[in-house]
């Protein structure tokens, strides 16, 4: 009998709030974290110059062991989220065997600001000023390494940089580590920092909306780059019960697939996305009509939302019209590798509180996106089973299923 893996702590660093309570409150209120970009000068860019940045964040307010000065912004988000998650879980870190406690993190870009600094030196012909800190702080695996260093976890340390689906991959991996008994507790999630490289890339793809993010709306004009982190405390159900932990939800299973179609665009008929959903349902032994909520990838680009809708219909058939679907990217923008981790946290909270966060700014329905997207207002709804979908460049598709814990 495989043991159940449950979510007992949530740590969030987002543009709409830091910490579980602020995040969830503002998410249900439909508050947006989107505004003019502050991280760098965007005057040379064509278009809207909007972003969803984490403002008024001081990592030192959360960290206990590490000095944030020695780490990049994504690592600062991740370590702060880890501390918040542990506090939220009331996990006594001193009582944990550090060698049986691990970290699994997803990211799109790692610490892009570090390579940007490197490039500034190359362009300015000051390469001689590049020091040892570049190799110590740039590679993406520094993110879980810093988290481990901050909380003292010496077990499995994993980085899965599968772009915009990375958080889901990291959570799925952490569950497997726990199920196979290779750890007693895992911190899992995703982190990404606002970056000029990412912003430039999406701007050149013509993917950035000029003003706001309107997933599934007929007039949707694109995504909004964002940043943030989410870390989940995952542990076996028996251990959570034994220590009297609050259990938000169980991570029931997952499915992964690859489009093998196009490096940036999703398959027009949603083949890969559908296979990830079907695999996840099969992994959990569930039928499609048992799903009570789908957290959409829902970036707000014309193609993503249409193709995602096609994929959902392919799997859920007529039931797809009865299952509420929402995209919280309408408020948080696209936080890259952090997105699916933040959305997994939202799924856990939706299950725990029987309330579904809305898709904001959905004013004019699109005939091609004709499902129930929970427009503009949160909805009370009993959520037994939530499916968290995330798709990425590289055709990397992932579906993670969370369910109400009946332990």
């Amino acid at each position, binding site marked *: 009998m495989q043991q159940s893996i449950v979510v007992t702590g949530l740590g969030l660093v987002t543009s709409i709030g830091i910490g579980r309570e602020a995040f969830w409150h503002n998410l249900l209120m439909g508050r947006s974290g989107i505004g003019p970009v502050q991280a760098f000068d965007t005057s040379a860019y064509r278009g809207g110059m909007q972003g969803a940045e984490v403002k008024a964040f001081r990592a030192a307010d959360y960290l206990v062991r590490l000095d944030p000065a020695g780490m990049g912004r994504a690592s600062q988000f991740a370590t702060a989220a880890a501390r918040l998650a542990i506090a939220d879980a009331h996990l006594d870190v001193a009582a944990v065997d550090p060698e049986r406690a691990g970290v699994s993190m997803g990211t799109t870009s790692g610490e892009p600001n570090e390579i940007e600094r490197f490039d500034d030196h190359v362009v300015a012909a000051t390469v001689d000023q590049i020091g040892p800190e570049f190799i110590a702080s740039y590679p993406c695996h520094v993110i879980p390494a810093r988290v481990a260093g901050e909380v003292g976890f010496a077990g499995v340390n994993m980085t899965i940089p599968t772009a915009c689906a990375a958080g889901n991959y990291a959570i799925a991996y952490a569950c497997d580590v726990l199920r196979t008994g290779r750890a007693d507790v895992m911190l899992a999630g995703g982190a990404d920092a606002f970056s000029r490289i990412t912003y430039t890339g999406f701007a050149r793809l013509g993917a950035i909306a000029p003003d706001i993010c309107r997933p599934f709306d007929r007039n949707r004009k694109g995504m909004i780059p964002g940043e943030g982190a989410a870390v989940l405390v995952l542990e076996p159900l028996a251990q959570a019960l034994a220590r009297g932990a609050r259990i938000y939800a169980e991570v029931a299973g*997952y499915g992964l697939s690859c489009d093998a179609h196009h490096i940036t665009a999703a398959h027009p008929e949603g083949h890969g996305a559908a296979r990830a959903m079907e695999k996840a349902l099969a992994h959990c032994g569930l039928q499609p009509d048992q799903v009570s909520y789908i957290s959409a990838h829902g970036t707000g680009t014309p193609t993503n939302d249409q193709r995602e809708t096609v994929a959902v219909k392919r799997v859920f058939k007529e039931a797809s019209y009865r299952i509420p679907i929402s995209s919280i990217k309408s408020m948080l923008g696209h936080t890259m590798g952090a997105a699916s981790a933040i959305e997994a946290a939202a799924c856990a909270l939706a299950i725990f509180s029987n309330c579904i966060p809305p898709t904001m700014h959905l004013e004019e329905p699109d005939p091609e996106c004709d499902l129930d997207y929970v427009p503009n207002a949160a909805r009370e709804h009993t959520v037994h089973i939530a499916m968290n979908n995330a798709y990425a460049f590289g055709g990397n598709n992932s579906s993670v299923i969370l369910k109400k814990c009946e332990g």
Partner: protein
Amino acid sequence: MERRVVITGIGVISPLGDSSVALHTALCEGRSSLQPITLFNTDGLVCKQAHALTAFTPETYLGKNPRALDRTSQLVTAAATLALDHSGWSLEMRREHEVGLVLGTMFCSVHTIAEFDRRGLTLGPNYVSPMDFANTVINAAAGQAAIWHDLRGANSTIAGGITSGLQALAYATELIRSGQATALLAGGAEELCFESFCGFDRAGLLCGAHYDGTEEFPIPFDARRNGFTLGEGAALLMLEDAALATARGAHVIAEITGHGSAYDLAHGMASQQAIHAIARAMRLALQDAQMDPSDIACLSASANGSVLADRHEAQAIATVFQEGAHDLPVTAVKSMLGETLGASGALQTVALLAAMRDDVLPGIRRLEQVEEDFPLHRAGPCNQHVHLRNGLISSVGVDGNCCALVIAQENSGQ
């Protein structure tokens, strides 16, 4: 009953050959691929040499000019061609039965990322190519190889510095054991480029000229070692659920029987902690394989000439194998291939598979003075002719990551 994971194909792109046979022959001849760097300007850098793939032509493996693919993606796609051909997974079979890809890489292409950024800086953000952006994500190579070869199964990219390749093999092993996948290409890749080279050079980790005046070269475990050299390459193994391999009548090369990983919170800066973490990864791998240290026939070390990491690994071998360490045949292929970062663990595995086939373990190039307190009596420049029914592969990062893998000939009783 847990599913067993077997290796049914090998694809390798290295400066010492593009087959496991060619690589093994070169390693046994003690050939080094180290040469002066021509790929970029080394003015102002301490190290001037690297193990570059100077003769790599992607068209040889891909049939047509892969213009949309950057160098890392080309290496991965080429290695995938070789591994798929070797294992007999034709395109028709892959359309019937999903094959996935798990790629370990430290940077994927930091060069592509940096070039994209620098073009934006110098020309303006409206003058960079959106298709170049697609290749800046760290999972780009795995995604491109999947498109090229129609790999629609699970597709994951694993980053863990030097340990990436071995961690990818361990991750893939777990996906097959848990039933999430039945056939996966898994391994690692890394390209040589200015950005990573400059980074390691500035961190003081690359070797300079030796104090006897001879030019720079890495000597794992030697008292004279003063750093490592960087290399590049790609290695992918075809991993399958043993039941599937049997059902399709595949030739089984070997089995992955165990893996283990650990993190050193002092990231290599405190010797006792570092040794403990490396030993812990090895012990976890042995435990997973249900083996005792005395069952292990040989060890492929991560040692690359690093002053500290080589010491820690040698002491960890002593910790795990006790007095048995004296009799344990040890090789360190980074003496000839250099440190290929995310590719290294997978390249070590390919080299060891070839060694197991021939029962010859390559010597460690130029290793003449094993540091006095290292218990490695069977590490030296000469090849060792021994029955290699299995082997332990170790991968040690400069940043605290440690990983170990056990491979064994099928039905070897372990």
